[in-house]
């Protein structure tokens, strides 16, 4: 993916919003990449978690919110456990999900949930799935 950086699209308000929402100080991140390395879902993410944080630092709202990364984050907390700066990337991902959901952007509509899933799956999957992806 080609990445162009510049002042175009730079949005400090977005960075502040993500910091307020997540409760995390993103200036702590020095891009060591431990989070992306330990993330079990990196292989499927359009932008790995360390780069998501970088884009947020740079105020690149659209780049971050259009990527599938936040929706694939499973909140397993491997990133949080590995971060040498005690940052919790899982909270940043959750903040991005919530900002998107509030704008009505969600990755799955209820109608797309696989046939029969709601009947046979554990309730916890449905409740967690709704909270992370729909509600």
């Amino acid at each position, binding site marked *: 993916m080609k990445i162009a950086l510049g002042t175009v699209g730079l949005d400090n308000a977005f960075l502040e919003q993500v910091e307020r929402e997540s409760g995390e100080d993103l200036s702590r991140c020095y891009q060591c990449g431990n989070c992306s390395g330990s993330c079990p879902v990196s292989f499927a993410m359009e932008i790995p978690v360390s780069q998501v944080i970088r884009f947020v630092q740079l105020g690149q709202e659209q780049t971050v919110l259009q990527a599938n990364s936040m929706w694939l984050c499973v909140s*397993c907390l*491997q990133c949080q456990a590995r971060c040498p700066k005690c940052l919790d990337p*899982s*909270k940043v991902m959750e903040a991005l999900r919530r900002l998107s959901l509030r704008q009505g952007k969600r990755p799955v509509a209820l109608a797309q949930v696989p046939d029969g899933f709601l009947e046979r799956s554990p*309730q*916890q999957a449905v409740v*967690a*799935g709704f909270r992370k992806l729909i509600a």
Partner: protein
Amino acid sequence: MTSIPYYPGCTLNTVAKGFDQSARQSLQLLGVELAELAQWNCCGACYPLTPNNVIGLTGPTNVLIQSQKAGGTVSTLCSFCYNTLKRTNLVMKEDVSRRTVVNDFLGTTYEGEAEVLHLLEVIRDRIGFAELKKRVKRDLKKLRVAAYYGCTLLRPKAVAIDGSESPRIFEDFLETIGCGAVEFPNRGECCGAHLAMSNEEVVVRLSGAVVASAQAFGAELIATTCPLCFFNLERSQKHALEETGETATLPVLYFTQLLGLALGIAEEELSLDGNLVDPRPALEAKGIVECVVREA
């Protein structure tokens, strides 16, 4: 008979009844009654990670308040419930501003007094592994069982059931009841969790890696503490069966079903028959349960 407050949670009340029943029966045999909370609601399944999502704390706080009324301790079986209740309890104990909002909203004065215990902790700390060993009635023949912790028993560190990097509680439990515990590399890796609802291919890959890792370390069966892990570990194998013709499968059981077997509960009472990957052939091959002829 002593009694300990018990929070089953939604899933154990519905699709994972075998988990709930095997725990109640087994603990009864160990002299502990799991006393279900008189009133309870869903914990929310996942701890609300963002600090301003205070409303997400009210559900689990309600459960904690009920636990406090019931005696001050609450035991859980489901990993999600354990994690959500324990993390919420930490907030209620330590974060004055969020605690105030939650209490004002609920009209309560709760300050994190309840103690949240996973059933494995109840067995280790309240009953004791030495005592458990004395109660074992059926020889599990060193069945090689992979102790799968998953994410929420181990992370974050502040609520980990044991050392979050090198836990032993699950393996020690399995060895106490006569299994040969298999400590395998992916024991703390994610199964794919709620992505079962949206991205099955990711779940198949993550759960598949857990199964492959357990298999590579010689496991004959995987033990879990979480109905969602159970669901994902089984389904990923079914998927592999359908997609690739891969036939090597590894059955999955809840740790309480193995406990029930060890304590001598009849296998018909332990819901061993509803699995996608039938655990009975593995148990029969070891001579743990009697061989029966059944239709394929």
